[in-house]
């Protein structure tokens, strides 16, 4: 397994390089010219040239790419072009709220959806199963924006159960006061599709031949569900969860914008809007690394759940 991890680690280098090339090319093609934003109303040719020189945009493209490589190797992306704050500070300050929201959301969603999915799969074909399926379909057809607007209006403003907006300074203050409403709305959005997906995984497994054999052998329903069905159904579920987890870094743009959560999602949007390449570069690279690490973790967990899985 150790050699597998080392091999996957090596494979990350060309992947990272490919992403860097793609990002660099895209930025230079459609990224916009930050000098026009930074110049404000001082739009003289001299000023634009001076800003471009200061940002290093007057250097040749290979030179600029080499600087990018150096930044990735040292993980020092310099300062933001729009606020002139160190990129590392921006990420350090904003990654916490993003992770707090998305991780709590993912964990709660996973548990609630798993319970729903397992129970509806167990009662497959019953009224309960059909009711959950219909409700899930209705819930899935409503946009997240509607949930946010309605939740904020009714639960925060009308019922006064939560603050409309804001973010505090302490972990518990945020966890207990500012996270609950976005979390509730997030769950309303994600439970329905997750339940349907997990239900499919469970039902597929429950219709397998080995389940029939187990039943014929006289094993209890509980043992079949927990020992056999759950283990096999978990493989696609883990894939889905592990694919979603890296996006803890990027947060949720809409949630952040509507609830004032100072996460990275909104920061990315603003960086793209203001052609703030150092911030775009840093967040993209962190995201790519997170995706690669979580993919590797998913493979290792497969092996842990099902020893028959071979890692090559």
């Amino acid at each position, binding site marked *: 397994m150790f050699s597998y991890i080392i091999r996957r680690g090596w494979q990350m280098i060309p992947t990272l390089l490919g992403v860097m090339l793609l990002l660099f090319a895209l930025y230079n093609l459609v990224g916009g010219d930050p000098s026009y934003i930074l110049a404000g*109303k*001082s739009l003289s040719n001299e000023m634009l040239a001076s800003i471009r020189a200061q940002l290093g945009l007057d250097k040749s493209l290979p030179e600029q790419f080499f600087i990018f490589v150096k930044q990735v190797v040292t993980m020092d992306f310099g300062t933001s072009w729009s606020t002139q704050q160190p990129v590392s500070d921006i990420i350090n300050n904003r990654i916490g709220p993003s992770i707090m929201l998305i991780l709590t959301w993912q964990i709660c969603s996973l548990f609630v959806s798993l319970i729903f999915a397992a129970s509806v799969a167990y009662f497959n074909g019953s009224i309960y199963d059909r009711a959950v399926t219909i409700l899930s379909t209705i819930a899935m057809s409503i946009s997240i924006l509607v949930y946010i607007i309605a939740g904020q209006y009714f639960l925060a403003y009308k019922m006064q159960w939560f603050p409309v907006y804001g973010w505090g300074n302490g972990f518990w203050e945020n966890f207990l006061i500012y996270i609950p409403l976005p979390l509730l709305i997030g769950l309303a959005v994600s439970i329905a599709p997750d339940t349907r997906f997990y239900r499919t995984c469970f039902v597929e497994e429950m219709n397998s031949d080995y389940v029939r054999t187990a039943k014929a052998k006289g094993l209890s329903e509980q043992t079949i569900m927990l020992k056999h069905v759950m283990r096999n159904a978990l493989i696609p579920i883990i894939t889905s969860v592990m694919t979603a987890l890296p996006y803890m870094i990027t947060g949720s743009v809409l949630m952040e914008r509507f609830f004032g959560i100072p996460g990275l999602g909104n920061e990315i949007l603003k960086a793209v809007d203001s052609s703030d390449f150092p911030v775009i570069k840093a967040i993209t690279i962190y995201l790519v690394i997170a995706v690669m690490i979580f993919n590797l973790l998913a493979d290792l967990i497969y092996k842990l759940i099902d020893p028959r899985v071979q890692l090559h």
Partner: protein
Amino acid sequence: MKRTLYKAILFSTALASSSLLYAADMSKTLRVEFDAGATGFDPAKVSDGYSNDVNENIYDTLLTYDYLARPIKIIPNVVEDMPKISNDGKTYTFKIKPGIYFADDPAFKGKKRELVAADFVYSIKRLLDKTINSPQSYLVDGKFVGVDELVKQAGQGPLNYDTEVEGIKALDKYTLQLNLTDVNYNFATILAMPAFSAVAREVVETYAENTNAHPVGTGPYMLKEWKPGSKITLTANPGFRKEVFNFKADKSDPVSVAVAKEMKGKVIPQTGNIEISVIEEEQPKWLAFLNQQLDILLRGIPQPALKEALIINPENPLDVKLAPKYADMGIQMQRKKMLEITFYFFNMKDPVVGGYSADKIALRRAIAMAFPRQETIARIRRGQAVPVEYAIPEGVAGHNPKARDGAKFDPAKANALLDAVGYKIGADGYRTLPDGSPLSVEMGTGTAAIDREWNEYWQQAFDSLHLKLTFKTGKWSELSKANREGKLQMWSLAWAADYPDGENFMQMFYGPNGGDSNFAFFDLPAFNQYYEEALKLPNGNKRQSLYDKMDKLIAQYQPYIFSDTRVRSIVTQSYVHGFKTHPILSGWRYVELDK
């Protein structure tokens, strides 16, 4: 007995000094909102309104504005009196008040640091430093005697701040003299801008790596916390000089009278902390205000909530009242006409829409006449805007309230005009150029939903003229670059007053500013001549007459289509006192909270 007396004296001295330390109630926090994050707090490095609002409260400028006087009036701030302006209008001399100190900071190594004339010399020079690339440098480029040479010597490197120049100099510890290269009687209005705030050289050098995050000024507040794009917290500066509210009310305005009465004699600032939340979306902004998570809505009632929050007179949409359910909650409303004009412009260098010949003027005028300004104000602005009839908006020196130079909506006449100059309708139903070649106009546009609303009206306008219209969609920076490179034919922008003088608006049409603040590249010798003459005049009848002529030329040649000026409905909670909307100032330092 002696000991008791000594203790009593000590106690009362301590009490007195603590009240001097904090006139503000440190338990009170004024909570306001921004639509977007501030870019930073180094006055030379920023130009956005959000950063300026914060800087106005951290730093001091030489001059400021009377909080209650309307039309707005410039008054001395950290200077003894208004500047002495030489007879030729080129030399401004200021006498700085002694005993004004910067907020304490480790950069001062434990010593009290007094504000002196040299601080302003340093601060103004920074605007010209190429290593700073100040977005405000256009205000000072070429304006001061001898400074251009200093800038040239520095090349792309930092300025030599120790070299004395004739244009910006300290005559003694407290006397600052500015020598302008040209006559300018209105330069005082520019000097009241936050860009001209005094910074201390030691602070800038100590925090050279990140001056935007380390503002240290002589103003009433200090930066306590800055989470870029999220939150800014200011706290009262305990070393702020003693300033007492003593503004005279504008008797025609009940809010002004009330503010003057309730604040008279009170020491500034009254509120210990200011918390600014960045709230980009309109629903949370409005609901947070209704939930009393915000004390003032600085940018007014959000557009989607206007219908619910206001009772709008259908005959006159500018006649509005707060809906009873909100008025009953004690919410107060003040109306604020922005110091701005919004407009569309043509690229005057473009072979299709540009140029100064009769057929080109006719094309531009026809397009202007086909645009339903009143309808866009009614539908898109919900009636909360006024049409622009003069290049300089109301509230800015040089505005002419009698002028009606905006294009009149009349599509029939517009079509007749195009017919008359030979823009014939072809077989495809679209007009061609007078020489028969195809005619199509491309307009720059943003990507927001509101942009699409405007585009629909423009499409209707062009359809009514049988003219082909296409849209070039892009981010602001992309469109700005395309415009500068002459690749856009039409685009829309808004210009908000940097300082309340007509020159700030008229410069947009001055030929040598082409591609810079003159987005249209409009270059008319007659206009340029009037502009140069007006620069040499103080605000008054002579300059007004020149401005009127200039405005007529803009209307005649139609490089710009004036759209509207927005009117905002600023609301405050019942417990907010001392707040009066000001066209330039934030007014936070005068606010008192009674809750």
